[in-house]
């Protein structure tokens, strides 16, 4: 499935009645079965963009189309081909790991036995076998992350949207989860759109890095990552990785400065 973002502009009402332009005329084609990373400073509208792509927020102007490259003329409604992994996970705290993972199937009305069988298989595949009856609050950050991943994967949707899913993890857990995600990508060949503000993460995971500007969010440049797959953490030390990092860093540096200047509050204002 490819995702076509066409002239998307998003405007929020500001606190003093002014309009805040979160996204300004963004157009991009996210290729089918590719791992694309949205890289940008905080507040640049990258989370908003994935929510618009997922059909969870309406765009003020413009539209998002999802196309099957095999049947490019069949229109598809947005939201049904994608599933989101959230920055703050949004696990249901009263549901066990098993019932969190099986949630989507339960909503489809699948009988208990069937949805539990599939959920158990997925829980096993993300390394959480034996924790089915635990509540999310009883798990570590990395384990909760795995639950969120399994809950999204069970939907078997061709597009996976990920909004800074590893931002809250400690450095080591983050590495393990990145490897896990690379494995999932290699096995399932989904179209993944991954929001991040970490340059290394974007290079390690992505085929393509969409660098965004500070607010109002626009696409500044699109970088192609031509590191071979399967990716591994050792590639971080390669020359190609270093070159890409420098490139992305210089692009993003300016935007981060702009974003920081936007976030300063004049003295006396609250």
């Amino acid at each position, binding site marked *: 499935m490819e995702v076509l973002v066409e002239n998307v502009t998003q405007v929020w009402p500001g606190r003093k009645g002014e309009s805040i332009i979160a996204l300004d005329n963004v157009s991009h084609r996210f290729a089918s079965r590719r791992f694309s990373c949205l890289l940008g400073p905080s507040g640049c509208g990258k989370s908003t963009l994935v929510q618009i792509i997922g059909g969870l927020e309406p765009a003020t102007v413009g539209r998002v189309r999802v196309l099957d490259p095999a049947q490019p003329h069949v229109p598809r409604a947005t939201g049904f081909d994608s599933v*989101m992994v*959230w920055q703050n996970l*949004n696990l249901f705290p009263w549901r066990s790991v098993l019932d969190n993972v099986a949630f989507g199937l*339960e*909503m489809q009305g699948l009988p208990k036995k069937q949805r539990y069988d599939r959920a158990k298989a997925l829980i096993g595949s993300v390394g959480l076998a034996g924790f089915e009856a635990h509540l999310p*609050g*009883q798990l570590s950050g990395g384990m909760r992350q795995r639950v969120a991943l399994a809950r999204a994967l069970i939907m078997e949707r061709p597009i996976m949207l990920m909004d800074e899913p590893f931002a809250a993890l400690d450095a080591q857990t983050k590495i393990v989860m990145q490897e896990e995600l690379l494995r999932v990508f290699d096995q399932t060949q989904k179209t993944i759109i991954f929001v991040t503000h970490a340059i290394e993460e974007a290079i390690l995971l992505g085929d393509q890095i969409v660098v965004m500007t500070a607010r109002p969010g626009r696409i500044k440049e699109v970088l192609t990552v031509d590191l071979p797959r399967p990716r591994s953490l050792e590639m971080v030390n390669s020359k190609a990785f270093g070159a890409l990092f420098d490139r992305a860093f210089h692009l993003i540096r300016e935007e981060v400065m702009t974003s920081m200047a936007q976030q300063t509050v004049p003295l006396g204002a609250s």
Partner: protein
Amino acid sequence: MSKRSNLSTLSERAAPTIVIIAVLLAWELLVRWRGIAPIYLPPPSSIVVYLFRMLRDGSLEFNLGVTLLRIFAGFSIAAIAGVTLGVLMGMSRLVARIVDPWIAALYPLPKIALIPLLVIWLGTGELYKIAISAVTAFFPIVISTYAGIRQTDRGLVKAARDLGANRQQIQLKVVIPAAVPSIFAGLHLGMGVTVILVVAAEMIGSSSQSGMGFLLIQSGQVMETEKAFASLVVLAIVGALIIKLQQWIDRKVAPWTAHRDGH
């Protein structure tokens, strides 16, 4: 180091019990040495004696049982009505709009002020005692339930929608479960005021001939101070037990609330 901390935790645990015993002992000695008349302040020992006397003649069990039944009846009515209306308000803006001014006007009213009216309408029988406690408990329950439903984490609702839940499924599977902790908080508050109002209602309206409130007012009138103290002790213990029971139910029904801070 560990030995010392063990010792200090042991003394920390024993401290409340030691203080209670010391206070009771001081009370007993004070009353005996100063020769205070039991009408003013009976010694703890004679309160215990009275407690056993009341147990043996069955008056304690009977009056306590009656009071507990009234508490249970009033609380059940308030809980069912309060949670139902709170959920309806949370799910329908129209219902919330209609009900809001009524709650805003009636909630701050001290419910004890309704006693004269309720006695006129319902007499001083069972109905009036259950009604006054149910009306009082209803408000904190409905308000907490409504607040809980309204404060549902928007992120959870979005996530459920993304996972294919329709509107009705979102209400039943996300919004209502997410409100359970605050519904329970309302039930706790409701139970607290139910106990107060039932006992108060038993003390007012002289035709009432049963219940812990009646026992208290009656022992006051005939200056059986020991009996009044004994009734107070029983009420305190029963109150504490009710709170413990509610906490136990909370943990059984909503175990995730204990882990909430871990997110």
